[in-house]
């Protein structure tokens, strides 16, 4: 603690000796935050220019409007926060490898998921030399980028991003400043910075694709009807083209109004210094970090002490929780003696922290491969059919080159659903909720339609962030074709364990270039119709499907977790077939 205070004082003294004349003119500027007062830091330490001059021309020479952009930040923020700027630059939110690498794989441009070009490399590739994936990325995906040019977005909302550090750390919602806005006669609102990042900053980007930000708040991107109408107008709009309806929010949001950063650690968000291919490699936390927490003494965790100091609202405990993946401190989960308390970062409100019980439903041997999310997720947004249309001769705004370039994309869909999350073996070889991601069906127009179209159908597994305290019912997994990954239809099982399935969706008649139902990840026999962009991920195989469904035979009657037959299910089944149980005499002939 003392060391931190000393360091801060030291920084203050270094800068305090230097008198900064900018505020002679810019006297009406609002403060940034408590940690960077003008009296101590001045303006020039971040914005450059000549701080000793009162002549506008000289003073403003070589000034930087936004020192928080990553290419500027090494010289400004990086003077003190060098290590963080290095990490952020390599993080997935900056280099965009998570999107790019998968996109190239899905567009069949690479055979495996591998690091090739990052977003920086794409700047130097001429439009005519771009591959389809690169073009798609530049035109449709690249708008979501931590270092996007923030001034191209007019309003704060689901479609405004960028600016480097300020993308996340700016907490006021005013329009992005341009040089013209800075009028010395008027009061100038300097962007306010904070480490207490509100979720709405995260939602600027995390409202698309797997839509976890929306789902967390209980918003399901709807079919686009904008209903119900109120005052003669459409309502429930997300932006110009999308709308939503309300479904149950994640319990962490619903009960405790926790924001994203209450769980997600700085290492998980700003990166660990490595360039990862996927979000799940980058994320630090998992459910058990809090709900089956492991602690370490505070004196061993200097980062935790520093973060508690910056937060400025929380007490100093004797122990803090440590994340299991990256061994980084979760400083808002604290332990004193035997009391565990969780603090909300925004206001340090103490919340009850329930530790995972060791009831049979959690210790059941047959359920050891289940990820927490498999049972505790209420719904998952599933967008079926991503019909990509590429017009070679069209023109569209390029989010990397920041101008209209050749080639235009249009995306159409088949349909949206939120029902029972389907399950599959996820990236971590655990059973997780899954949904289409992405089912690319491509058509290419030159002057007329060409024969170059292809389809590449994939699912993806993720934590949908719709956590509920109550888990799904036994039947909802063990006898539900959607959950098993076969899609909607009629599932049945015969005496001889033979599973029958009649799917509803007829892809061929619906004009798709494949014959399996669009919502079928696997067949009833475990044939994998659609792929994953992770090497270890897959749908259930035949053996697994049979095992899951055959357990249903017992679940019909024994549909409670605490039923004693599940204490040793193998033994119970043996006794049943030996007609040694009370029910077997009635059922077996």
């Amino acid at each position, binding site marked *: 603690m003392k060391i931190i205070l000393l360091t801060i004082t030291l920084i203050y003294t270094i800068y305090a000796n230097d008198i900064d004349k900018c505020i002679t003119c810019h006297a009406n500027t609002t403060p940034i935050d408590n940690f960077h007062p003008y009296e101590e830091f001045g303006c020039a330490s971040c914005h450059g220019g000549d701080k000793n001059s009162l002549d506008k021309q000289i003073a403003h020479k070589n000034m930087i409007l936004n020192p928080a952009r990553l290419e500027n930040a090494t010289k400004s923020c990086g003077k003190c926060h060098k290590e963080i700027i290095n990490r952020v630059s390599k993080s997935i939110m900056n280099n965009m490898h998570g999107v790019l690498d998968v996109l190239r794989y899905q567009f069949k441009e690479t055979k495996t998921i591998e690091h090739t070009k990052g977003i920086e490399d794409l700047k130097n590739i001429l439009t005519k030399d771009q591959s389809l994936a690169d073009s798609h990325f530049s035109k449709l995906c690249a708008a979501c980028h931590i270092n996007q040019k923030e001034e191209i977005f007019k309003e704060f909302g689901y479609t405004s991003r960028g600016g480097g550090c300020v993308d996340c750390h700016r907490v006021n919602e005013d329009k992005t400043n341009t040089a013209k806005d800075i009028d010395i006669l008027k009061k100038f609102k300097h962007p306010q910075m904070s480490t207490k990042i509100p979720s709405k900053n995260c939602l600027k980007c995390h409202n698309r694709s797997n839509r976890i930000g929306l789902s967390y708040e209980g918003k399901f991107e*709807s079919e686009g009807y904008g209903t119900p109408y109120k*005052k003669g107008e459409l309502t429930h709009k997300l932006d110009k083209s999308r709308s939503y309806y309300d479904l*149950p929010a994640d319990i962490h949001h619903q009960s405790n109004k926790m924001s994203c950063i209450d769980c997600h650690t700085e290492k998980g968000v700003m990166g660990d210094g490595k360039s990862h291919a996927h979000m799940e490699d980058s994320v630090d936390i998992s459910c058990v970090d809090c709900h089956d927490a492991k602690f370490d003494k505070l004196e061993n965790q200097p980062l935790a002490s520093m973060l508690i100091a910056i937060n400025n609202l929380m007490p100093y405990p004797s122990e803090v929780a440590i994340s299991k993946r990256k061994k980084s401190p979760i400083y808002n989960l604290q332990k004193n003696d035997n009391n565990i308390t969780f603090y909300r970062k925004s206001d340090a409100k103490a919340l009850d922290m329930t530790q995972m019980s060791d009831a049979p439903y959690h210790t059941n041997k047959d359920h050891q491969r289940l990820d927490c999310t498999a049972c505790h997720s209420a719904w998952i947004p599933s967008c079926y059919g991503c*019909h990509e249309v590429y017009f070679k001769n069209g023109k569209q705004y390029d989010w990397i080159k920041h101008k209209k370039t050749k080639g235009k994309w249009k995306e159409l869909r*088949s349909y949206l659903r939120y029902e029972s999350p389907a399950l599959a073996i996820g990236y971590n070889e655990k059973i997780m909720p899954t949904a289409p991601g992405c089912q690319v069906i491509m*058509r290419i127009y030159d002057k007329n339609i060409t024969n170059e179209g292809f389809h590449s159908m994939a699912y993806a597994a993720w934590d949908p962030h719709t956590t509920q305290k109550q888990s799904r019912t036994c039947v909802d997994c063990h006898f539900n074709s959607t959950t098993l990954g076969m899609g909607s239809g009629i599932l049945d099982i*015969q005496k001889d364990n033979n599973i029958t399935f009649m799917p509803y*969706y007829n892809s061929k008649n619906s004009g798709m270039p494949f014959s399996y139902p669009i919502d079928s990840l696997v067949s009833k026999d475990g044939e994998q119709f659609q792929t994953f962009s992770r090497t270890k991920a897959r749908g259930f195989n035949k053996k697994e499907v049979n095992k899951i469904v055959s357990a249903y035979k017992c679940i*019909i009657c024994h549909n409670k977790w605490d039923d004693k037959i599940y204490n040793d299910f193998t033994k119970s089944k043996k006794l049943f077939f030996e007609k040694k149980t009370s029910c077997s005499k009635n059922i077996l002939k």
Partner: protein
Amino acid sequence: MFKKYIKMIKYILILILPILIYANECLSCHKNYNANKHFSNHYSMKNAINITRSTWGIKDSNVTLQTLPKAKKNIHSKEDLVDDFLRRKCLSCHLQSKTVNPTNNSCLACHNTHKNNLDSKKATPTMNKCIKCHKNEYIGGEYMGLFPHDYDKSYRSPITPKGYYPNKSAGIDYHHLANDVHYEKGMSCISCHNGMNFEKKVDCKSCHKNPSKKNHKDFHSNLSCNVCHSSWNISSYELNVLRDDTPNYKQWKRLTVQEDIYLENFLTKALKLQKKGILVDPKMPDYITNILEDGLWYSGWRYRRWENNFLVYDQNNKVKIAKPMFQYRISYKDKAGVVILDDIHKNKDGSKIEAFIPKAPHTITKKAKSCEMCHENKIMLDNTLIDKNIVKGKVIKGRLFLKEELDKLQSKKYKLERAKTLF
């Protein structure tokens, strides 16, 4: 002046000629034809009209297409608005509606012409005639596996191999789901719904006379055949309707597909003109008089689903599959931009205008569905249903399951019987 008269005469001739020619032509041979006997409901539309009027709050409604009151001009409540809604939205489907039958000869709405040759088979109604009206929520399209896409622009998929958007001849494009088994065998609508009594309900047992005793147990004797022998079912939740008399087109830019070809063309044109600075008056036809009237009727759903099956009892205490229909949310904005009705979804007594109606899904399967589709039915049983909005509303011409009837679905007796079939 003279030119104007010629135009008028031309118009009158175009209107009258086909009636003179065709109607006379049909009736000159079919002398014993009796409109009421032949197609009472298709002609009078009394079922559709009176159900709609009663869900909108009009008590003891008993009118027909021919006696439907004129739309009211002064609107204060949803009851005032219903006749306008019927005339300009629902009744785009009736025998003489231009959208269904451009010929002005009622016979030709369903029948094909057979001119001079006496091969009467040629006049037999074909399925494409029936599904002009009997589509989407209304049974018919589903027989051929058709499930409507959503309205938003992004659902005009997939792009066909030749590069075009899918065909929207019925006002909307379709997903193709599992067909009815009768359709698979090549049967058409009139294979079952035939003869002079074709409006009467068809009993499966009139053809399938002796269902095997082994599979058709006594305890299921009060079930309609289709409860077990159907697959998917179109469930349409919350139909939001808005009559807007102001030219507020911009918000419908992505939603021009409204299952109404007139409205779609109008909106597309109006939006184009608006870009050029020209604002056209919002007008759409009264589908009975074919006169353009003020205001446009827009619509949108909460959502439509094919997965959900929900059981109710009908008036004869038979178990049937219910369709959520007529769950109206009604809005009206007048010419001055005043919102007269703002999302009205409750009756005066506070009850919701939402209803389920027992129907017979025409997605018949040879093999019965699994027991779990009903006995473990999430919508009926599960308190953890995700969307609490799917509530169990009022049932038109029937009733909901009572508590003890729901308990029966999960009874020990059922469980034992089911387990016996699996071991």
